[in-house]
């Protein structure tokens, strides 16, 4: 009701006589007429900015994402079991070459059987032998997930080659021969007994493979074959040199593929032509592979003495769980040396954020002081200071960074005092601080030019205020809004510059123990985009999110602090 009256009163074109009479009431005798006090609280500058910011949905979302990324960077290194392993065993953080280039594994996708992001990989063009090797794997975890497709390809009329399209679990690395101390061995035996899997099918320790004695007997066989061929007058490829070559290569193959527990033979044609690089699985009369496990008195041998250590052959996946206490499943996969990308990316994100924010703060302070002096004093001081910033901003920071990086890494004394990680941080610090403050200085200078001639400054000066007081108490607070937003927009700039320079490899992170998103990208592009896209995908995602969110957040702040927009959206 009251509102209606108000609108009638404010509308001057309204015919007073047309106002309905029931809206009027008679003034009581003792009634006081006065303006009503504001029921709402006055909105301060900061509060208004907050309100305007809160209305900007995109900025809010961006701020939340930044917070989540920061949480990721803080929490993962604390919580992740990968970060809390024995430092003597993993001096440069966790790495396990057996799990190199493991693919990203997401338990949810695995449970839903979606076929992607579950640590499996589709391999095209596998031969029958590849398939058989995977099928014959004697570990507890079969590497073969499914045989997707069998392709019969006709290469010549009537001649077919069979290919398989297989889905392979990149975590089922099979059995590995490892050397352990006696204490470790006893612990493992105790663990197996406790689990009730000691010397069973599911045991961690598997029988050792004795390929050396097999190769010795195979050598006899080859020599015999050579003599047979010579007797028949067939000139095959089997010479003495060829035999030793075949055996050398086969020994290397057995060494590398420790999941093989059966006899392999060199590929041979009926005419005694042998191939030193192609092997076939040898089958017995029943079509079964011939095992070459090490036997002693009719029993499998599980351990071998090796210079005071014990050599055992273990299912590596299960051994890893026993040894490290967590399952070797990596959310973002691993890199070339088997380091967990999920925790490394968290550390890298933290590093990039810290560098971005830290350097921005330093730049902001330097720029503020420089711009304040230059803008406040003006005249010759301004002219000289402007020329200095001109020259400084003309030298790209990449030159300074390169020079710093080379100079510092070559300086053994400096390296020993602050460590090789410190050297990198120092190089970044100098390169980005060197010209990064120029932008802030320019903005501050403009703001000072704007405010220094205003009456309130004059008033304060008349009352005897000194320059520092005028600068810091009067002019600066007025310019604070503009300056803050410009400094927030500086953060993504620094993060971008840092990541692209370390991506290009201008700063070498390799031996420093430091990780940044850029260095992860560098690693990823070194590993090849074609073969290991996961190593590039996740760092790219994080850096993109960081850049987008900081820009949105900064723009939101700018709009929020811009008082001319006050009330424009209402």
């Amino acid at each position: 009701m009251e509102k209606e009256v108000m609108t009638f009163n404010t509308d001057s074109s309204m015919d007073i006589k047309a106002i309905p009479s029931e809206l009027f009431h008679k003034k009581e005798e003792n009634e006081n007429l006065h303006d009503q006090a504001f029921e709402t609280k006055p909105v301060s500058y900061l509060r208004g900015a907050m309100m305007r910011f809160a209305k900007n949905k995109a900025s809010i979302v961006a701020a939340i994402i930044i917070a989540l990324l920061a949480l990721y960077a803080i929490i993962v290194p604390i919580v992740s079991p990968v970060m809390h392993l024995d430092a003597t065993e993993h001096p440069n953080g966790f790495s396990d070459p057996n799990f190199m280039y493991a693919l990203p594994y997401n338990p949810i996708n695995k449970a839903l059987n979606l076929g992607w992001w579950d640590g499996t990989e589709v391999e095209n063009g596998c031969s029958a032998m590849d398939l058989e090797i995977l099928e014959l794997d004697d570990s507890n975890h079969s590497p073969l997930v499914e045989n997707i497709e069998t392709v019969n390809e006709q290469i010549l009329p009537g001649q077919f080659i069979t290919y398989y399209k297989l889905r392979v679990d990149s975590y089922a690395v099979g059995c590995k021969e490892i050397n352990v101390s006696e204490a470790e061995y006893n612990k493992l035996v105790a663990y197996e007994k406790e689990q009730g899997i000691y010397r069973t099918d599911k045991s961690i320790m598997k029988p050792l493979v004795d390929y050396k004695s097999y190769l010795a007997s195979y050598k006899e066989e080859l020599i015999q074959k050579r003599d047979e061929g010579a007797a028949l007058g067939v000139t095959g490829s089997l010479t003495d040199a060829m035999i030793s070559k075949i055996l050398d290569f086969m020994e290397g193959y057995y060494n590398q593929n420790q999941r093989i527990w059966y006899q392999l033979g060199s590929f041979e044609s009926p005419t005694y032509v042998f191939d030193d690089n192609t092997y076939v699985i040898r089958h017995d009369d029943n079509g079964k592979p011939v095992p070459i496990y090490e036997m002693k008195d009719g029993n499998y041998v599980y351990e071998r003495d090796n210079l005071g250590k014990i050599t055992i052959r273990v299912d590596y996946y299960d051994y890893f769980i026993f040894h490290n206490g967590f399952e070797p499943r990596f959310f973002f996969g691993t890199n070339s040396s088997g380091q967990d990308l999920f925790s490394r990316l968290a550390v890298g994100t933290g590093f990039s954020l810290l560098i971005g924010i830290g350097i921005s703060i330093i730049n902001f302070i330097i720029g503020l002081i420089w711009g304040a002096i230059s803008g406040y004093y003006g005249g010759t001081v301004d002219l000289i200071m402007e020329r200095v910033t001109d020259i400084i901003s003309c030298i790209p920071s990449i030159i300074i960074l390169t020079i710093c990086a080379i100079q510092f890494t070559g300086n053994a004394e400096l390296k020993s005092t602050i460590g090789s990680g410190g050297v990198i941080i120092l190089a970044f610090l100098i390169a980005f601080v060197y010209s990064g403050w120029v932008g802030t200085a320019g903005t501050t200078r403009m703001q000072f030019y704007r405010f220094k001639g205003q009456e309130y400054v004059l008033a304060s000066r008349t009352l005897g205020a000194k320059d520092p007081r005028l600068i810091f108490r009067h002019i600066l607070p007025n310019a604070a809004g503009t300056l803050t937003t410009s400094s927030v927009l500086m953060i993504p700039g620094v993060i971008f510059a840092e990541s692209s320079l370390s991506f290009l490899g201008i700063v070498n992170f390799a031996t420093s123990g430091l990780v940044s998103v850029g260095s992860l990208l560098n690693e990823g592009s070194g590993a090849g985009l074609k073969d290991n896209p996961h190593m590039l995908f996740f760092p790219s995602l994080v850096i993109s999110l960081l850049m987008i969110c900081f820009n949105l957040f900064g723009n939101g702040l700018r709009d929020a602090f811009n008082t001319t927009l006050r009330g424009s959206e209402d």
Partner: protein
Amino acid sequence: MEQKQKKKDIELEETELPEKKPLDVSNASSDEMALESDRPFLERFRKGFVNFWRNKSTIDLLKYIGKRLLLMVFTFAVIFLICFILVRLLPLDPGQSMKDPAVFNEMMVAQGRYVKIIKEDGTADYQPMPVLMQLGNFFKNLFSGGDHPFGYSFKIEWLSSPADLLGSHLTPTVLMNIYVMIVSVPVGLALGIYMALRKNHWEDHVLNVLIMLVISVPSFVYAFVIQYLFGYVWQILPPLAASSSVNYFSPTYFRSIILPVMSMCFGSIAGYARYTRAELTEVLTSDFMLLARTKGLSRAQATVRHAFRNSLVPIFPMILGEFISILSGSMIIESIFNVNGVGGLYLRSINDRDYDVFQFVSMFYILIGLLGTIVVDVSYSIVDPRIRMGGGK
């Protein structure tokens, strides 16, 4: 960002000179402009050209250019000095994986950069000269026309001159950047115009979001995406640029640099579109647009003849600035796609510690940057005579 800053500066200057130029130009000149635009283009151009050279302000402009060039020489000299000293102070270790250190050291001695010391046991030891003496020797070499005044490359190409190296790497970079410009300028401007005309419609909002994404996301991220999808997954185009042995103008080479050009285009297009949209929306609400419509022009005519031309005032210098920078390649894109360009050369010179090449290419980049700013500033006053660069108070 930089461009915008510059524009702001110019605006400031404009407002500082109320007595020299009419502040409210839009109304007064829109009549003339409306008439001007009805004349044949060539005649107008000829007249404008003649007027341009007769005008007193042209002489002012020439003076301004001269002043800027002088300043540039001074700035360049200072930067050169700083870089020269910093680079020459770097620990030079030519011994590592160098073909023949003795030959290189002798050349350094001949250039006055090293001192040869014969030790007691007869072996030669080479020590670097003090940097300021090296500087003196460098200028002596440069002005006396000695061979290889800019030093030698010892890693990238054994004992070749950095200038030759740069020259041989320029073609792919320039070629790539020209392709990028050919694609991105029309597309970017067209997108910007479209967005400005459809302002606050859903098309505008969608494009705005897309442009924000493209500008925020680092270029190497979409370079990876493009390379992975087109090059490896779908295998439509070669994922890497062809080697330098292929003729740069052959179709093979062109095909192989489509992907890098594509990845460079995204950022460019987004930049142009955003800028054009901002300028055009501002111009579209001007009073002279109303006048043009009142006069009977259709919306399309008014937009093309009046609004777009005026909005080009800040956009044209931006394009010009980009045109200057076609000489300097993008290091990131060139390294991802293995393009044998200037950016790649620069990166290699850094990673191989090939200092002379590094210094030469750095100076080249700085020179281009300085020239670019001058050209941009000068072009403002050529495009729009109302703007008088460097005008005093």
